């Protein structure tokens, strides 16, 4: 059980680092005195407040694309991994090509995404999906293939159906690995979305954070660039925290890392 003191003790170091970083930025910005190169933290905070409606709209657009990309990765990644884990021939034939998702230069195929999906949220979400699906496939498959052989024997001894083996043995024992994949995918989904927004470039009301970063850069509003970057990071952090919470609720009874 965590006590109030414990929470304080675990929060203190990162808060101190944050304060130090903000102070360093303040000092550097004052010495440099070039707001276009490095705005003062106060200016970033002010930009957050002044442009809150625009930024909130951008954050919402980016969040939508990220969630679509992430859930597509989660569902497709787990499904593909289940097929690959169950079928050795498919694993040998197909798995090498899933590495494509890991290595594809998303910048290079952006025009294709726009050709296929049109210049809309579809192309952006697809970019998010392509960037984030591989760790889900790889980790889920690793989890499904590392089931305790003795437990497999036990299920065989009682003539369990393939269905029971999957639902009662393989998937539950792969859960920690699946969550590892999802944690990595969450951060990558945000990156994939922002990069997708850069490349697809949907300007106008409700433009995503990636687009907001480009348009603020063009008009010399570096403080808005900072504000948008900060929001994108917070989005990634929130996704990561949500997945950690889900993992904790599901696995806390039996998986050591989730027990404290």
């Amino acid at each position, binding site marked *: 059980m965590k006590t109030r003191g414990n929470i304080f003790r675990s929060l203190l170091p990162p808060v101190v680092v944050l304060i130090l970083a903000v102070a360093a930025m303040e000092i550097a910005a004052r010495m440099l005195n070039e707001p276009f190169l490095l705005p003062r933290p106060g200016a970033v905070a002010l930009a957050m407040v002044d442009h809150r409606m625009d930024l909130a709209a951008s954050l919402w657009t980016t969040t939508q694309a990220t969630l679509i990309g992430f859930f597509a990765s989660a569902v497709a990644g787990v499904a593909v991994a289940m097929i690959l884990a169950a079928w050795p021939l498919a694993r040998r034939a197909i798995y090498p090509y899933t590495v494509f998702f890991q290595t594809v230069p998303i910048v290079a195929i952006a025009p294709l995404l726009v050709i296929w999906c049109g210049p809309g949220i579809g192309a952006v979400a697809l970019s998010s999906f392509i960037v984030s699906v591989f760790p889900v496939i790889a980790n889920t498959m690793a989890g499904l293939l590392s089931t*305790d052989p*003795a*437990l497999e*024997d*036990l*299920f*065989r*001894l*009682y*003539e*369990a159906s393939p269905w*029971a083996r999957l639902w*009662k*043995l393989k998937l*539950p*024992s792969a*859960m920690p690995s699946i969550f590892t994949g999802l944690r990595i995918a969450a951060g990558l989904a945000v990156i994939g979305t922002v990069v997708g927004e850069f490349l697809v470039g949907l300007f106008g009301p409700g433009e995503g954070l990636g687009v907001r970063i480009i348009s603020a850069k063009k008009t010399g509003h570096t403080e808005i660039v900072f504000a948008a970057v900060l929001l994108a990071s917070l989005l990634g952090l929130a996704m990561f925290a949500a997945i950690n919470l889900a993992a904790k609720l599901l*696995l806390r*009874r*039996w*998986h*050591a890392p989730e*027990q404290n």
Partner: protein
Amino acid sequence: MVGESAAIVQRTSPGRHAPALFAIIREANMRVQNVHKVFDREVVAIENLTLEIQSGEFVAILGPSGCGKTTLLRIIAGLDRPSAGAVEMGEGKIAYVFQDAHLLPWRNVLRNVALPLELIGVSRIERLAAAMEALRQVGLSDAIRRYPAQLSGGMKMRVSLARALVTKPKFLLLDEPFAALDEITRQKLDEQLRELWLRHRMTVLFVTHSTAEATFLANRAVVLSSRPAKLVQDLTIDLPAKREGSLRSEPAFAAITRLIYGALERGGA
């Protein structure tokens, strides 16, 4: 207390041919017939092994480590196939206890024990009742809601034993089940297992490398040689049915362990 004389009867010697085949099949509950197991086309794990086991026998299987005891047990359980030969068994369920507990960490004790019944399609209420009863028999009634991560090694092994007993098996196969436990826990579990056997009289095959554990538990000790496993000696352990901890310090007990030890040495342990 031990009887005046602990008679040790040589049951079979290697190479003896089974006489009156018909009578034996009718009588024997389990028959390992000329079983041969070769791994990777060259490593002979078991060489032409024949064993007859009567219904309700408690048989300890001993041999040097890596001699193929586990392989033999897996073949009998149907988890591995022999390269040649066959295993014939009477009607009845088989249960298998592994070297470690191997529980499902995401299930609590009760649902772990109920698992075999769940897999063979027994209704929820029936299987939970049977699991409660099996847990009562191993003395774990008060731990049913706990998770494996919260149990000691000895408790985990008792859960594993309860999981094996829950289907009321006719054949109970155990592969060095208590080898990883400390001596006291192990002796307690041996005593508990012996009592369970006295009550249910299932056919038990117990793989171990401890001569003392074999002597305490079993009514018959089958000693195998180092790889490839061949039958070195087959002894009847003629000690009282009801066995208590004090038996371990009796001279007759020591005599039998020495005999098994001698057979192990002859087998190249």
